[in-house]
């Protein structure tokens, strides 16, 4: 059985998005419930939130943006950049704590204390650009983690697998010129879903050409199509790239019962994806995986999805 970290902290519940928003604290509670009722807590190493050194956030985001976020947040405004980004005065601190917790998980995976980790954080990150909050995201958690692994731990090649139903525009844009980070995303086709990027021909630019790969899926498609596309697009790409660690943008909103998008992935489909990620990590990355929560909004499905996700990380 693997040594698996589980990042969870009640302070992640403090980011309040108001009464009519899908990205709510109950999502994390549902995830925690699934993992604890599944009897998995005793096997996991709990990681708590912590404040990161801001220089790691600045490794991805413009200092001006970070200051603007902080100011707008403490001014008491309810939205930031777009109405999607609902917030409260705790939002900035929560976003910092999410990053800090993930970097703590990264340290423990890198120093060998853990094989892998699941970071159940809010707010999510993959839509956040260097200078703009988008789609419920403020700091790009996974991108910051990738830069941290490179600068602090000397990792040369980071592989990112993003199976959130929406394309991670922020993560792609941050690394599209960078051949040291391979970004792979499978998502609902951008002509039908937010944010409208992640087309098949977006494959990276300049030096980074060939180090971005997108698998857009047509509305209504499910497990079989995901398997076909990942076998065609992801597995050969990682075989060539040989990532030294795999970061996962784990969004559970492609589930058939999640109505923020139109995909039909089943609970088993998610397990299949994660099992393949673990197998790739075993082959190329000494088993190192850091999975970070992105979307997933069906409170009835999140417990089972989180439980399975963590069980696969544990290889119980």
């Amino acid at each position, binding site marked *: 059985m693997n040594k698996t970290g589980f990042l969870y902290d009640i302070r992640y519940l403090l980011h309040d998005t108001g009464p009519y928003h899908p990205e709510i604290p109950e999502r994390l509670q549902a995830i925690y419930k699934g993992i604890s009722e599944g009897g998995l807590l005793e096997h996991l190493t709990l990681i708590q939130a912590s404040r990161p050194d801001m220089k790691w956030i600045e490794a991805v985001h413009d200092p001006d943006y970070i200051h603007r976020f902080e100011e707008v947040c403490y001014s008491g405004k309810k939205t930031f950049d777009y109405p999607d980004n609902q917030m409260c005065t705790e939002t900035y601190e929560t976003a910092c704590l999410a990053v800090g917790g993930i970097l703590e998980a990264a340290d423990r995976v890198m120093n060998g204390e853990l094989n892998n980790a699941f970071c159940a954080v809010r707010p999510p990150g993959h839509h956040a650009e260097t200078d703009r909050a988008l789609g419920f995201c403020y700091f790009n958690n996974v991108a910051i983690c990738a830069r941290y692994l490179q600068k602090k731990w000397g990792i040369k090649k980071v592989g990112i697998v993003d199976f959130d139903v929406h394309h991670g525009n922020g993560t792609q844009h941050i690394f599209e010129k960078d051949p040291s980070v391979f970004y792979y995303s499978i998502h609902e086709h951008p*002509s039908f879903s937010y944010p409208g990027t992640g087309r098949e021909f977006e494959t990276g630019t300049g030096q980074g050409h060939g180090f971005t790969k997108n698998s857009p899926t047509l509305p209504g498609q499910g497990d079989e199509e995901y398997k076909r596309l990942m076998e065609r697009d992801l597995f050969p790409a990682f075989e060539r790239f040989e990532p030294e660690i795999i970061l996962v943008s784990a969004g559970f909103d492609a589930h058939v019962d999640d109505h923020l998008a139109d995909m039909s992935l089943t609970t088993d489909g998610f397990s299949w994806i994660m099992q393949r990620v673990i197998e790739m990590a075993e082959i190329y990355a000494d088993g190192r995986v850091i999975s970070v929560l992105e979307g997933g909004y069906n409170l009835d499905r999140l417990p089972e999805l989180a439980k399975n996700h963590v069980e696969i990380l544990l290889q119980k």
Partner: protein
Amino acid sequence: MFVNRSMTKKVITVTPGTDLFEAKDLMAKHHFRHLPVCREDGLLFGIVTDRDLRSALPREFSKASAHPDTTKAQADVTALKIGDIMTTDLIKVSPMDTIQDALLLIQRSNVGALPVVDDQNRLEGIISVRDLLRAFINVLGIGEPGALICVLVEEKVGQLKKIVDAVTEEGVSFGSVLVARYWDEKKRAVFCYLLTVNVRPIKKKLADLGFTILDPMEWYMDQLPKPD
């Protein structure tokens, strides 16, 4: 929404063995600027454009005039075949790619038309800038992060206002709105490009108002024939 709805299906093709003058005549006759080059079995081999022909012919003629033996030079030009000048490094699309895919691909690759091929590389049609302009008189605001929904409304005054009001009440901005014809003449398909990831409450609100939210796989930008 898909390329096969907007592409030109009756495509005039040539073979690698066709000579340049014959190809030039075909283009002039049919007002095409792109001729897909297919093998006898229908598999796509290359493409030749009017520009390819223009640059191939005068150059060969100027060589010819400089040549002491004019007759031989003319023979050389005549011997030139489509296979010698065609582009084989093709940018292709499939029938189930979307119009937006084709639009962006044409824009970035600086070509005027894309051959449409099936999985076996068999030519199904060609989609040109002209085809896309027809389908995209109002281009959706796809440069900005947002999501598209399609609402079916009765063809009567005031429907769009209801939609705009409902979206505005949710505090969401429009990237663009496209009103398209639908196979049922009494209805209109309203495409709202919304600057939000959170389309669920808006879809629900519109459904509660009695509007039909069309399944994305049923979206078309052109007028549809009535289904059988």
